[in-house]
């Protein structure tokens, strides 16, 4: 990963161009300092990365494979399509990479409790899993609306021993869960670590989460070289906060020939008010919220907009500051995929390849499948399948209007 990004100018620690920083209530100042120190210390310890990789290899299934999609490639008749399989991770998404990494840090810091926000529920399940495994107490904050969308994940979090707290503030989605965590942390930080789930929030989170997620990109780069003998022409990833994208992009940042494409939630359309595209379409503007400076969906007076996406994990106002910077630099191109396109892409990928991307990940497929035909067969493209669709069954079945599913629910509910 480009180390340049992390060579902060004096007095600009945690800044990526104009984005980043640490805008938190003073009460959290020392906690963040402690975390930065612990992280720096771990990062400088070669044994730490080895321990981290070992955990990911023995507890999850890293390295996750890269799968060639011959059927889609033939169907679309352009670039060869490869998929990085983060869906195969334990708990079903890339989230576990970050979570296990932070878990090891928590152990180094000697804290006894973790808290986390969750949108799709994936990060909550991953955190609750890590907490169960490492013997930590765990509280998960989740927007009330997201709880309604992602009950199965809530159920498993509870089975894992986590306390799941419904957040009823604001829009009752991911951003409000983050606020709730910051509030909890401001009180509990002596024995509690906040396991932020994406590359947002105050320094050192964007850097730290990118560091752990960079395992995706490191593996993927080597795998593409091994499998195809060359680097991919483009790499696609969906962007909620941006952790899976930052993770896979990290492997290719220094490869100028590789175009990096982030795909945001186009919701009902970027021209409507109902989407979560911060960068694609230029609807976001710079601001400071939830501890960091980046591009947010907000009105002229800095009040955040309601966002909207069929994918709970992308339904978020802000984007990681590193990605905002890479966008500003022109290093990462951003596109948006609408809900309707996402459901279509999901169907196609399931049907043609037997892969079941999460609704979030299906965003990356939308753009990849749109662009593949315009490239040549000499090109390979790589799509990050950040998670699996199992958690989305309620949403997908509803989007597809599956009558038998509804009947099934009625029967189950009547018991």
């Amino acid at each position, binding site marked *: 990963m480009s180390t340049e990004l992390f060579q902060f100018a004096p007095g600009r620690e945690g800044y990526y161009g104009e984005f980043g920083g640490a805008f938190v209530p003073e*009460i959290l100042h020392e906690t963040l300092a402690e975390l930065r120190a612990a992280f720096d210390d771990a990062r400088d310890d070669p044994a730490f990365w080895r321990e981290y990789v070992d955990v990911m290899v023995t507890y999850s299934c890293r390295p996750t494979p890269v799968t060639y999609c011959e059927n889609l490639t033939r169907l679309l008749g352009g670039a060869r399509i490869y998929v990085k399989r983060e869906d195969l991770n334990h708990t079903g998404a890339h989230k576990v990479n970050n979570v296990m990494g932070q878990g090891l840090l928590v152990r180094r810091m000697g804290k006894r409790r973790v808290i986390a926000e969750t949108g799709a529920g994936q990060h909550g399940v991953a955190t609750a899993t890590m907490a169960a495994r490492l013997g930590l107490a765990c509280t998960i904050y989740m927007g009330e609306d997201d709880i309604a969308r992602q009950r199965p994940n809530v159920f498993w979090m509870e089975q894992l021993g986590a306390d799941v707290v419904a957040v009823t*503030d*604001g829009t009752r989605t991911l951003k409000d869960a983050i606020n709730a965590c910051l509030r909890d942390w401001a009180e509990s*930080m002596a024995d509690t670590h906040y396991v932020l789930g994406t590359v947002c929030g105050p320094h050192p989170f964007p850097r730290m989460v990118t560091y752990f997620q960079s395992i995706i990109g490191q593996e993927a780069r080597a795998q593409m070289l091994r499998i195809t003998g060359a680097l991919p022409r483009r790499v696609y990833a969906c962007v909620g906060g941006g952790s899976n994208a930052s993770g896979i992009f990290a492997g290719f940042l220094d490869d100028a020939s590789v175009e990096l494409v982030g795909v945001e939630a186009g919701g009902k359309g970027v021209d409507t008010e109902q989407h979560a595209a911060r960068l694609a379409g230029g609807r976001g503007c710079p601001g*400071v919220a939830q501890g960091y400076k980046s591009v947010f969906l*907000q009105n002229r007076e800095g009040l*955040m907009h309601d966002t909207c996406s069929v994918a709970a994990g992308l339904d978020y106002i802000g984007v990681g500051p590193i990605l905002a910077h890479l966008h500003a630099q022109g290093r990462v191109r951003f596109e948006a995929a609408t809900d309707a396109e996402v459901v279509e892409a999901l169907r196609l990928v399931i049907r043609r390849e037997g892969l079941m991307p999460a609704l979030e990940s299906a965003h990356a497929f939308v753009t990849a499948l749109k662009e593949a035909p315009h490239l040549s067969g000499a090109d390979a493209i790589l799509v990050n399948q950040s998670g699996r669709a199992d958690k989305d069954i309620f949403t997908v079945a509803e989007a597809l209007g599956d009558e038998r599913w509804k009947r099934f629910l009625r029967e189950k509910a009547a018991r």
Partner: protein
Amino acid sequence: MTRVDAAGLERDVRDGLAKKPILLMTHLVVGYPSLDANWTMLEAMDAARVDLVELQLPFSEPIADGPWFVKANQEAIRAGTSWTTYFDFAARAVSRFRFPVLFMGYYNSVFRMGGERFCARLAAAGMRGFIVADLPPEEAADLNATARAHALDPILLMTPANSTERLREIGRQASGFVYCLGRKGVTGKQTDLSQGVADFLGRCRMATSLPLALGFGIRTPADVSALRGLADIAIVGTACLETWEARGPDAYREFVQALARETAA
């Protein structure tokens, strides 16, 4: 510990402290429950001779606030409280009441407005300073310089979690007075004043010669009374709003009176 060269807000505070042992700062979220209600609150504060007043500009992500103020921020936004609403209201308050009026809010509002414009609008409204809950001192240098050019005091926070070194650093940059947090966490919960508050305020005194205000969890007249001899200013926020919500304007008036009574010489 009086500084001879006190000016601006500090001068006001010291003048007040010359007359009574502790001052009282109260707070409201502009636009919640309504501007009319806010005005009634200000009248109550004025009647009780409250010494300083914070007017909070609502923000959609109020990470330093507890549930009462979160709801207040949200409802005020829903009611359409804009910058113009806010500054018009603040200017009316300044021109009608005696107490110094301070801005309270989150950095995104300042950032979106631009530091220069922010300070100019505060000054134009006759406000005296500002508290930005999520702006750390290392990010505040430019804004604070601009503020001083507009004769505004940026009010910095000291917290029980801060190291001595950090307190000293904050002390170096502060002016007006220092907002000391009675405990960890966000606004709205009770603080056990017996536990460590005196120690903490002692550490703050070592770090600054400015007057010290203590906030977060000061909820009752007895709390205010207990701060006499410890802090220079008692800050009461959530408890006032709770009283208004639960028991109405008359009870609010009485409650503010009761708080203020404990600050008397």
